[in-house]
């Protein structure tokens, strides 16, 4: 099915200019331009707000969507920041690409156009990011190598695990039971940690009480409750789908340490027994939280590594996301596989010469 929003390149350029000049976009750009200053700089006209009990205020609705790649393209070497011109260009390209992008981007047969549903990142308030990559440590902006044992585990999972990457659209879908589907298709878990750019609606609601920070992820309305009271982590034989978090303030930065991950549901298949994730939340201006995470799992990566994902403020509210209650994915993928099984079985019977009436 052709993308009905595909236009010739000349018309596209005109459309882009028209889009970029619409009041909403211009307003977003103005907001974005303020946020595009060097991430650590404090805008002198802005005062960090505080909650009534004195915590730096991280509250509100935020998106983690981004045009910035996870790993740094080799051409930038160890350069952490783009020039203003480069940043604007990448942002423009991101907007343009959104008209071509679909969620299962199979060449010329797109599934559907994200912009129709106002789901593209720039429509959700993502600001230009001056970083060359999300990964900031190691200094070359790439994720460290896997340990040999982790590489083996990942290769085995690629062969037998759920077809999460949709790498080959022509490969038969293995869906014998629900465990052949990925965690999202089973409505089991969304939202990290760490917080990463998602496909769409990668939105969060943060609220703070005197003793806790609560992060609600839109997908599944998944909660992460982060106690600030210095209580010990859960015992090591209790596991959590989002791990078990404890937070404290260091100046204006919320530092969160998470352990007790659940085997089989870890970030990039890391080892639940040894994985520790540290997160740092700093509100750098009215519209931006600088969010940094450090992944530490010596049995999976040869050294810890860190990334910075800007969280951009968006308008609320977040609606209910009743996943299990409406899980058509699980039903349709499994039912489709059964229909394919049946078709294959009937074809085999025909070619084997068994009369149809004897089936």
């Amino acid at each position, binding site marked *: 099915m052709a993308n009905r929003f595909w236009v010739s390149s000349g018309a596209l350029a005109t459309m882009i200019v028209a889009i970029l000049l619409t009041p909403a976009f211009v307003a977003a750009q103005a907001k974005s331009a303020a946020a595009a200053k060097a991430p650590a700089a404090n805008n002198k006209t802005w005062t960090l707000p505080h*909650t*009534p*009990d*004195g915590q730096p205020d991280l*509250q509100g*609705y935020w998106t983690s969507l981004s045009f910035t790649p996870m790993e740094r393209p080799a051409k930038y070497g160890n350069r952490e920041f783009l020039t203003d011109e480069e940043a604007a260009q990448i942002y423009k390209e991101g907007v343009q690409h959104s008209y071509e992008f679909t969620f299962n981007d199979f060449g010329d047969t797109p599934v559907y156009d994200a912009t129709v549903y106002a789901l593209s990142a720039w429509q959700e308030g993502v600001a230009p990011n001056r970083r060359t990559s999300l990964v900031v440590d190691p200094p070359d902006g790439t994720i460290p190598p896997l340990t040999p044992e982790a590489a083996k585990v990942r290769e085995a999972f690629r062969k037998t695990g759920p077809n999460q990457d949709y790498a080959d659209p022509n490969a038969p879908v293995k869906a*014998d*039971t*629900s*465990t052949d589907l990925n965690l999202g298709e*089973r*409505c*089991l*878990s969304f939202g990290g940690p760490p917080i990463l750019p998602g496909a769409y609606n990668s939105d969060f*609601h943060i*609220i*703070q*009480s*005197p*003793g*806790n920070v*609560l992060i*609600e992820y839109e997908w599944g*309305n*998944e*909660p992460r*409750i982060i*106690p600030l009271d210095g*209580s*010990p982590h*859960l015992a090591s034989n*209790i*596991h*959590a*789908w989002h791990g078990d978090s404890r937070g404290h303030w260091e100046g204006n930065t919320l530092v969160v340490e998470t352990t007790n991950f*659940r085997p089989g549901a870890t970030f990039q298949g890391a080892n639940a027994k040894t994985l520790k994730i540290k997160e740092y939340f700093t509100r750098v201006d009215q519209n931006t939280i600088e969010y940094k995470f450090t992944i530490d799992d010596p049995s999976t990566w040869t050294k810890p590594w860190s990334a910075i994902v800007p969280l951009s403020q968006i*308008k*609320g*509210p*977040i*609606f*209910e996301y*009743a*996943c*299990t*209650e409406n*899980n*058509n994915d*699980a*039903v*349709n993928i*499994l*039912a489709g*596989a*059964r229909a394919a*099984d049946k078709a294959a079985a009937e074809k085999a019977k025909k070619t084997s010469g068994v009369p149809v009436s004897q089936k």
Partner: protein
Amino acid sequence: MKATAVFVFLFACTPIVVQAQTAVQQRAARTAPAASAIPTPGQFPPYKVPHMADGKPDLNGIWQAFVAADIDVQDHDAQAGPHPEIMGAYGAWPGGQGIVEGGEIPYKPEALEKKKANAEKRMVVNITSDPHRHDTGDPELKCYRPGVPRANYLPFPFQITQSRDNIIIVYEFGHVLRTIYMKENDPEAPKEAPADSWLGWSRGHFEGDTLVVDSTGFVPYTWFDRAGDYHSDALHVIERYTPASPYHIMYEATIDDPKVFTRPWKVSFPLYRRMEKNIQLVDFNCEEFVEKLLYGPYFKDPSK
């Protein structure tokens, strides 16, 4: 002699009469149990709930109901659960005194038939990729969102996190998250439910020290209990959370649904603060326990 006998009798009786009067006087004078006395169920000494820095009553904490209402909100006996030949006492359901004020839910006569049909088919699970998946089967069984007020009387704790503009309740059951919008005239939280949902659209405010929550915009698929008590999309719930001691919130919910009931009706029961040191919610991601129940008919080998 007779006069003396009468006098002695009267004299002998006097101490008992005096003692009896004193006890009655004591009970009459006691409007609430003294701090050192064993508490009387239903009575609390006067209590002023601490306020947060923004001046609002502080409801933060982990709370839990200890009634058997999830099984049946009305009075009911204990009963064998499903498959008693395997489950024995593990699967049996406790009896309980009802939480419905006045005792009985005021169904319209024609609406009572659906309650009975629900109960008969509470374990008939037939999942399709359309709303017919809701025709039968208790949503709790399927690990669906339990709705309001059932979420508050499930046998699981829940955590109230209260900020200036929002109260979020996270229920241990299925990590269900419910948002109560507290800000007046909040442009990010319209007064009317912008979309229907399982937990409804909740606006809250304080009346004195009572949190009042007004919820509408419900889908018609949740039940009030395993006995098949149900509602329509006209459901309107008003809840009142009143801290009664450092360890108790007295909870009540008024249920108003003119499509199903002849009048509004109320449930009420205490919520207890979980007092274990280092208490926190532990994952009960029941989605993983219902996969075979929900999708088994679509498995390649339904026996696996």
